[in-house]
């Protein structure tokens, strides 16, 4: 319980930092909108094209914007060695991981909340149904859990902007494939039962990687 309280304190601090600077949200949302517009021009917004490419475009957009957001989350801890400030405070390394994970999940979901209506408008597809919301939340949890761990690893390297995608994308690929396939089936009019296999893949990934990242984090963060 104490650990969760510390984690929420760290996540709240990240949100407050973003409110003060608006660094991540403004740049990431602009980037996301540009990606969607470019794809819209490339594939058009006919019903047939939208049905075929929309899920892929949406998850590519989420993956790229997610990377930008994840990179920033540990860069702010590296400036002035704030991460050491957290390490000498009376909380476990695991609480630090949870705090950053909660913060990253919040930001990625917030970006999705802004991007999805624009995407729906341009591709003339409604994304607001229970199945798609569930897929998005589950995939985002997996995305943020692995991303938080790798962002902590990458921040200590010189080419951190390059290292994070190189480490992150191969690991997150199963979630992206499952999310794209599940989203495509839902847009094709299929129900929860039909996508349960893909949901199972995402759910299993989430459980494994949230637990593994939580346990590994202290080894990554300590010098």
């Amino acid at each position, binding site marked *: 319980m104490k650990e969760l309280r510390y984690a929420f304190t760290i996540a709240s601090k990240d949100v407050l930092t973003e409110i003060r600077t608006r*660094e991540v949200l403004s740049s990431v949302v602009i980037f996301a909108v540009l990606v969607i517009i470019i794809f819209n021009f490339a594939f058009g917004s006919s019903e047939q094209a939208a049905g075929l490419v929309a899920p892929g475009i949406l998850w590519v957009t989420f993956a790229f914007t997610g990377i930008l957001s994840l990179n920033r989350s540990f860069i702010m801890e590296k400036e002035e060695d704030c991460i050491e400030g957290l390490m000498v405070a009376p909380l476990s390394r695991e609480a630090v991981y949870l705090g950053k994970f909660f913060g990253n999940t919040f930001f990625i979901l917030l970006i999705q909340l802004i991007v999805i209506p624009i995407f729906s408008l341009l591709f003339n597809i409604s994304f607001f149904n229970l199945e798609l919301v569930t897929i998005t939340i589950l995939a985002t949890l997996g995305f943020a859990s692995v991303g938080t761990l790798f962002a902590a690893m990458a921040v200590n390297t010189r080419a951190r902007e390059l290292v994070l995608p190189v480490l992150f994308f191969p690991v997150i690929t199963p979630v992206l494939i499952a999310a794209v396939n599940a989203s495509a089936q839902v847009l094709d009019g299929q129900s929860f039962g039909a996508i349960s296999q893909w949901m199972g893949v995402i759910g299993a990934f989430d459980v494994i990687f949230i637990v593994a990242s939580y346990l590994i984090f202290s080894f990554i963060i300590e010098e």
Partner: protein
Amino acid sequence: MINSIEVKSLCRNFGSFKALQDVSLVVKPGETLALFGHNGAGKTTLLKVMSTVMKPSSGSVEYGGRDIHKDSGIVRANLGVISHRSFLYSSLTAYDNLVFYSKLYGVVDREKRIKQLLSSLGLKARMYDKVGTYSRGMQQKLSIARALLHQPGIVLMDEPESGLDNKASESLWKLLSEEQRTVVFTHHNLEKGFAAADRVMILSRGKVFFAPDGKCSLAELQDAYSASLETA
């Protein structure tokens, strides 16, 4: 309150490089120990291990008989750390930063404590300004406030006076002496460090080079420091 320090046979290696070799020291409650040494002597590494940021390769550190890794939560709650870097978020205000750290340390009556510390360090007028707009010296003062927020029994300081003017340096030592605190600090200036300390120690190439049991004279310290530079 936990306020004694015992470091036993501490070693820390970075690959084949031995940054600390068999370092042992004891600091009694309320005592102030100054660490000196040439660049790369191992002072910062020793403080990083003592502050739980870095794990030792071998050896142990105990505060009041409690091991820093087995009882890390209790130990860290009694530890204040001032480093080369401020540990402060430049996008947040001074007040935001101190509120954040006071939540992590469970500071009771945090408003009062924050305002008291900021007043003592002459920062109250700018408490709602972003830390990024502060000068180096002001950031160092705020870093002192951050480290003393929870009234720790032990304070570890790596070059605490860097960037501070004379008045701010005086405020630092005054704040530290308000309660019985055990202090270990590094200093690049032998005279100033000697004046502030009860005991001194010189590290050279990761080993204890000079560690008199009691208070030595400044001349002895200067001679030992010169000798340590020859071995560096």
